[in-house]
């Protein structure tokens, strides 16, 4: 569900009045995008559920600080990304059971350079659907949060450079160079996870 500019302005006005019906409408309109972003950033559904709720609560509390320079959705992404970065730092400091489970499943192998999956006879066989998605998700989880955010925003959420600049507050050149480094790092992590170089075709 995407709101046009007029509808969005009206919604923001109602949100500023703390109109509960408007807030319900707002959550319904954006919950899929927020949850998808948070889930991809955190790679953990339970954490994502909790954090997605916190994102909307932050919006409810701080809608007065929304100046309207960007679209509401872009501002919401910014709030969500900041929440994600803080949560990732928090989770990194605290060794959670989820991280232990990931290590047992193969995260350790990824960080130590060993293959997560058994090497297939034909590398392209491993490049199929769900298996590849798992490797990519694990590899994403190994990126620094700044790099992860850029890959998620650009390559998974499909945002433009301009939107990413607004969300991250970074200048265009920095977004481009960091995105390049992030993609290179992701490729390396995927290849470590697969145990071989990504096939060309």
């Amino acid at each position: 569900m995407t709101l046009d500019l007029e509808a969005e302005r009206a919604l923001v006005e109602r949100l500023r009045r703390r109109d509960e019906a408007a807030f319900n409408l707002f959550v319904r309109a954006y919950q899929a995008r927020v949850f998808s972003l948070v889930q991809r950033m955190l790679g953990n559904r339970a954490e994502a559920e909790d954090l997605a709720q916190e994102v909307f609560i932050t919006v409810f509390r701080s809608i007065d600080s929304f100046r309207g320079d960007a679209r509401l959705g872009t501002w919401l992404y910014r709030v969500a990304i900041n929440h994600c970065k803080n949560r990732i730092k928090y989770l990194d400091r605290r060794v959670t059971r989820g991280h232990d489970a990931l290590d047992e499943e193969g995260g350790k192998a990824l960080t130590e350079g060993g293959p997560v999956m058994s090497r297939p006879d034909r590398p392209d066989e491993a490049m199929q659907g769900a298996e590849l998605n798992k490797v990519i998700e694990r590899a994403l989880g190994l990126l620094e949060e700044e790099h992860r955010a850029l890959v998620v925003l650009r390559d998974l959420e499909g945002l433009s450079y301009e939107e990413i600049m607004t969300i991250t507050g970074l200048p265009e050149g920095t977004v481009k160079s960091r995105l390049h480094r992030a993609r290179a790092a992701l490729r390396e992590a995927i290849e470590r996870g697969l145990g071989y170089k990504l096939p060309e075709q």
Partner: protein
Amino acid sequence: MLTDDEVRDLFSAYHDRELSPERSEAVRAALDANPSLKGEYSAFCRMLDSLSAMAAAAESPLAGVAASDAPKEAIPPDLLSGVQRRLQKRSGGRFYGDMWSRLAGILPLELIATLVLIALVLAYAAMTMVSARPAPAPTGATPSVTAPR
């Protein structure tokens, strides 16, 4: 002529068509001249294609048909009610303190209105049928007819 490492540094911008026409042409020429580098670029593109496919699969309306196949990104059904509960608790009951605002959050207002309307129509129909039905004749009794004298 660009070096291989310079071309590698431009993979991302080249893929996203963010290079000037001259720079883009230089990268294309370098890739054409070096099959190994071209292979690296193809692998790079393939990784980005996989990311796009992953994003598209999660957004596919067919993806969530079976619970086991549901995408990870399927929205939790209680996300809104969870937000409402937290807001109610943290605001000390100032927001979402009444049942109706929370119910309206869980069920769309249109659905609630439709359900209420259906209930009213059914109630009205039931009342009309009861009042229009003729009174049943007592069982086993024959109407007594008295002959006029």
